[in-house]
C-alpha cells in the first residue's frame, strides 16, 4: 500500500512529505519555538492574576491564589480611570482609520487608473516616502502643529491620515486596483459615469479586501504608536492607552505590579481580538501585498 503511494508520488512530493520520524521531529521543533514565542504573553496573563508578592517569587504559570482585584485596581488606578485612556485611543484610532481609507484609496485610484503629466515622478516620490523615517520630519511637523495650537489635541494624530501620509497603504491599494479589470470602468464610462462615480460605485466596493487590510493595520499601528502620542499629548486627560500604561511604570517603585500586568493585558486585548478575527487575512495580506512591483 505504502509502496504504491510512494511510487506514484513525484520526486518533489517525496521531498516534501517527510517520513514519520522526520515529521515528528519537525513538529517537536515547531512546538518548542511556539512555546518560547507565546510564553512571555502567558506569563503576563498569569502575573496579572497573581498577588504582588507571588509574581516574582513563584515562577509557575498557575497562580496559587487568584487575585482579579488587580484588574479593578488598575482600571481605576493611575490618576484617571483607564476607561478614559481607552476612549481617547478609540477616538484617535477610528479617526486614523477613516482618514487612511478615504485618502489612500483616492490617491491609489488616481495612480492606478489615470495617465497624467509627471505620473512616474509622483509615483516615485510616493514610494520614496515609504522609506522616510518619521523621526526625520517629526520636529518641523511638531512646530507646524504647535503654531496651529493643536498640541494636546488629537488633531496631529488624525488629520495627517486624511492627507494620505501612509504611503504603504497607497501602494497596497494601487497593486490591488491594478488587478481589477479595466473593462468594468470602461463599461461604466460608456453608461456615462464620471471618474468619481466609477471610483465610488465600482472600484471601492471591489477593493473591499484591500480596505479591510488597511483598516486592520491602521487600527493596530495607530493604537500602538507610542512616539507620536508621547510627543503630541501632554495632559493626562488626553492620554491614550500606551501613555496611560507608562504612568504605571513611574509608580511601580511601590507595589502595583499586579495592576500593571492587568492593564498591560487589557491594553493588548484590542490587538489580540483583531488578530484572532482576521488572523488569516493579516498573515496572507502581508505575504502577498507589496511583494512584486
Amino acid at each position: 500500500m505504502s509502496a504504491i503511494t510512494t511510487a506514484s508520488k513525484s520526486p518533489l512530493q517525496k521531498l516534501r512529505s517527510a517520513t514519520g520520524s522526520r515529521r515528528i521531529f519537525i513538529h517537536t521543533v515547531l512546538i518548542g519555538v511556539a512555546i518560547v514565542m507565546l510564553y512571555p504573553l502567558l506569563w503576563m496573563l498569569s502575573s496579572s492574576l497573581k498577588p504582588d508578592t507571588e509574581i516574582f517569587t513563584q515562577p509557575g504559570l498557575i497562580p496559587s491564589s487568584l487575585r482579579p482585584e488587580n484588574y479593578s485596581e488598575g482600571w481605576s488606578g493611575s490618576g484617571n480611570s483607564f476607561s478614559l485612556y481607552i476612549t481617547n485611543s478609540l477616538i484617535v484610532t477610528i479617526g486614523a482609520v477613516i482618514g487612511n481609507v478615504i485618502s489612500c484609496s483616492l490617491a491609489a485610484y488616481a495612480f492606478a487608473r489615470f495617465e497624467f503629466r509627471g505620473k512616474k515622478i509622483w509615483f516615485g516620490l510616493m514610494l520614496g516616502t515609504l522609506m522616510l523615517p518619521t523621526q526625520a520630519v517629526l520636529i518641523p511637523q511638531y512646530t507646524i502643529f504647535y503654531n496651529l495650537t493643536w498640541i494636546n489635541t488629537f488633531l496631529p494624530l488624525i488629520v495627517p491620515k486624511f492627507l494620505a501620509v501612509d504611503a504603504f497603504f497607497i501602494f497596497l491599494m494601487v497593486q490591488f486596483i491594478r488587478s481589477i479589470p479595466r473593462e468594468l470602468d470602461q463599461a461604466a464610462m460608456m453608461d456615462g459615469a464620471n471618474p468619481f462615480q466609477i471610483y465610488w460605485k465600482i472600484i471601492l466596493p471591489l477593493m473591499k479586501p484591500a480596505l479591510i487590510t488597511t483598516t486592520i493595520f491602521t487600527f493596530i499601528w495607530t493604537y500602538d504608536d507610542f512616539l507620536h502620542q508621547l510627543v503630541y499629548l501632554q495632559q493626562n486627560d488626553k492620554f491614550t492607552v500606551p501613555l496611560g500604561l507608562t504612568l504605571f511604570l513611574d509608580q511601580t517603585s511601590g507595589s502595583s505590579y499586579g495592576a500593571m500586568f492587568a492593564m498591560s493585558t487589557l491594553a493588548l486585548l484590542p490587538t489580540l481580538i483583531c488578530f484572532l478575527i482576521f488572523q488569516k487575512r493579516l498573515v496572507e495580506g502581508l505575504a502577498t501585498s507589496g511583494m512584486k512591483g
Partner: protein
Amino acid sequence: MTTAKTDEVVKEQSAPSTPSDQRERDRMRRRLARRRGGGWWPYAFLAPWFVGLFGLTIYPMLASLYLSFTNFDLLTPAQWIGLDNYDKMFTDDPVFWDSVHATLLYVLVSVPLKLALALGVAMLLNRDLRGIGLYRAAFYLPSLLGGAVAIAIVWRQVFGGDGLFNDFLAWFGIKGQDWISSPDTALYTLILLAVWQFGTPMVIFLAGLKQLPKDVYEAAAIDGVTPVTRFFKITLPLLTPIVFFNVVLQIIDAFKTFTPAFVISNGSGGPLNSTMLYSLYLYKKGFTDLQMGYASALAWVLFLVIAGFTAVNFIASRYWVHYDD
C-alpha cells in the same frame, strides 16, 4: 492601451468588422484615451495626498534642514548658527557617539539574527504539515504586538533581577543577574525583543518559498542533491530578491526603533546610555531638552544614514540578488 489592443484582436477574430463599426470603435477608443488622461480628475483624487506630501513631508524636510543650522527652542525664533550643531555632534557630544554605538550594534546584530530565524522557520513551515496555520499564527502574533508599550513593559519585567528569564536559567543551575540594569546586557534584551518579532519577514519568506519553481527541485531530487547543497545552490539563490526586500525593510525598521528603548530604560536610555537608541536620543534632545535645532541636525543625519544604508543595499544587490527575468 494594451488592453484596448488585445480587445481589438479578439473582436477581429470573432466577427468581421464593417467600416462603420471600425469608425465607431476608433471614436470610442479616442474618447477612452482622453478619459484616461482625465484632465483635472487625477489631480482632484490626488489633492489630499499632494497636501500631505508638500505640507507634511517635503516642507518639513526642508524646514528641518534649515533648523539644523540654527539654535531653536520652539519658543523664541530660530537663530542661525551655521554648522555648529553638526560640529558639536561629531566632536563634542559623547552621548551622540554612545547612541550611534548602541544603534549600530542593535541594527547589525538584530537584523541578521531575525532574518536567519525567519528563514529557518519559514523553511520548516514550507511543507504539508498539520496545524500549519496554527504555527504561523503563533509565530506571527509577537510581531503584531511587538510595538506595544505593554510588551515592552513585560520585557522589562521578564529580564529584571527576579524575572522570568532568571527563573529559566535557574533550571540549568545558572545564577542570573538584573539584565536590564547592567550596561553590558541591557541592549541585548532589546535585541532579543526584536528577534522575537521575526514573524513579518517569516511570512514574506514563506510566500516567496511557495513561489519557487517546482521543476528545479524535481530535477535536483532526481540527481540526488543533498539538502544542504539544495539550500545553498537552489533555494537561497532563487530567494535572493525576497531576502533583499526583507533586509532593506528590516534595517530601516531597526533604525527607527523607539518604544522598547524608551520603556525599558524609563525614558533615560540607561544604564550608561547603553540603550540610548538614536531615535530615543533625538526625542530627548528635541522634546525633553527643547534643543530642536540640534535634534533637527540629528534627524538629518539619521535620514542620510538610512538613505545611505538603503543605497548601499541596492548597489550591493546587483552582485548577489538574482532575478530570473
